[in-house]
């Protein structure tokens, strides 16, 4: 299937040059909440990707019929309904994952990336482009989450995905020389890490542009 340039751009843009977290600075709050460990960050990234894509398509399909005065409410209803359905389905078919996500799943409704994409893109574009835009933005958000969570879990607890990476014998408690960095577990560290990524991202893209 040959995709038009615009469709490709809708998908690839948010991954890098128009990243929702790095450039639009959206969805920062959840980046703090779920990035202490890699696993919840991964699951959150995937859930947001699915829900942004689905709600983008739904809103895009009905975009011409939505009265503009209540469009935000309509968008919220669509998102809330989708999140509820996904959470019910998870509880029935993947109970462990649903328990793991618990509060985060409800928090997806409040993620500003969703409302931002619905309002800025899905309301004015066709369903295929909207789907791509949703996937792109979701994944653009997910990779930042995963990158931050990787650093925080590795340096904060010496683990990745719950598996011990730094050998036990290295720790001071066991007569070694190594100590976990407790700072990494604090929410503020997520902001600092996102800041570092934004800095690297800007520096790289500015160089490219020249």
């Amino acid at each position, binding site marked *: 299937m040959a995709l038009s340039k615009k469709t490709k751009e809708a998908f690839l843009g948010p991954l890098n040059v128009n990243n929702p977290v790095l450039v639009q600075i959206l969805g920062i709050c959840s980046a703090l909440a*779920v990035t*202490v*460990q890699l*696993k*919840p960050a991964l699951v959150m990234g995937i859930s947001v990707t699915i829900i942004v894509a689905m709600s983008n398509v739904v809103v895009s399909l009905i975009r*011409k*019929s*939505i*009265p*503009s*005065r*209540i469009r935000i*409410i*309509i968008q919220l*209803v669509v998102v809330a*309904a989708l999140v*509820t*359905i996904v959470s*019910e*389905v998870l*509880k*029935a*078919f993947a*109970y462990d994952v649903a*328990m793991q996500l*618990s*509060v*985060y799943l409800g928090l997806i409704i409040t993620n500003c990336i969703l409302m931002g994409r619905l309002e800025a893109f899905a309301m004015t574009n066709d369903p295929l482009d909207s789907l791509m835009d949703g996937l792109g933005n979701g994944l653009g958000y997910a990779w930042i989450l995963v990158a931050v969570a990787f650093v925080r*879990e590795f340096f*904060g*607890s010496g683990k990745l995905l719950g598996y011990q990476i730094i050998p036990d014998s290295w720790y001071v408690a066991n007569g070694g020389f190594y100590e976990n960095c*407790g700072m990494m*577990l604090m929410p503020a560290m997520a902001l600092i890490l996102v800041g570092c990524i934004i800095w690297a991202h800007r520096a790289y893209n500015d160089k490219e542009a020249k």
Partner: protein
Amino acid sequence: MNTESSVYTIVYAMILVVIVAVLLAVVNQGLKSRQEANARLDQQKQMLVALNQDYSNSDPAVLYQKLVVDTLLSEGERANIIMFEVENQTKYVLRLHGQGLWGGIGGYMALNDDKNTVFGINFNHEGETPGLGGEIVTEKFRSQFFGKHIKDVQGNLRSIAVLKEGKMADEGQEQVDAWAGATITSTGVSEMLASNLQEYSEFLNDGHKECYKSPICEKKKQDCCQTKAGTECCKAEKACHQCKCENCDDCKDCCAGGCEQCCNNGCKDCKCCDKGKKCCDNKNNDKE
């Protein structure tokens, strides 16, 4: 059509809400039985973890059914105290529930048949911080509790304190280390244990070892005792100690605080003295 008119807007909103409501209701009803089954299975798994049972190689539901004996105390649909038999030993599993930092925390505590020694414990939480409060579910935290006692040497209910390293619990109370960086969650665990065990103090201090409040007997408003044949409810006109008990040929007093000794005479003569701690014959009642 004019999508900006007030009538259109109102009708549109109403139709959309009805569609969404119907959709959600259908999904909810359609998946309900599956969700409830999942929730039940999850509870059973948690109890198995509290009982230190490895269910990775077997069906947890089957294993649960094999071990469970009876529900001793329940609150509506929810079982609070459940009796299990693990390797021919009686274990009691108590449901725990309390508050952590961000939401509810809970768990199951398995006690040996002395109602004092912790055999195993399991924690769960709704949304404690991963890496900090969330670590209460780990083996490293849980295993600190194994073998601890919830009563002091005098037999008073004291619970187990969760304290920062270096702090000491009150005299007679046993303690475990709090999880570093998760002060509020650790305090929550400590308070949960204290308040829940207090709630179950009637059971924990009771001598009715074999059968505390069997639901069958409770329904009939009768006392109960454990016999070789199983749980037996005593009829109102018949005193409880006339029930035949497991370890004695003849009888063991089951009612007045649970006598440990068997009476030589028939059940009729079996009475408890000394605050129900000892069983003695009628004749020697005063002496013992």
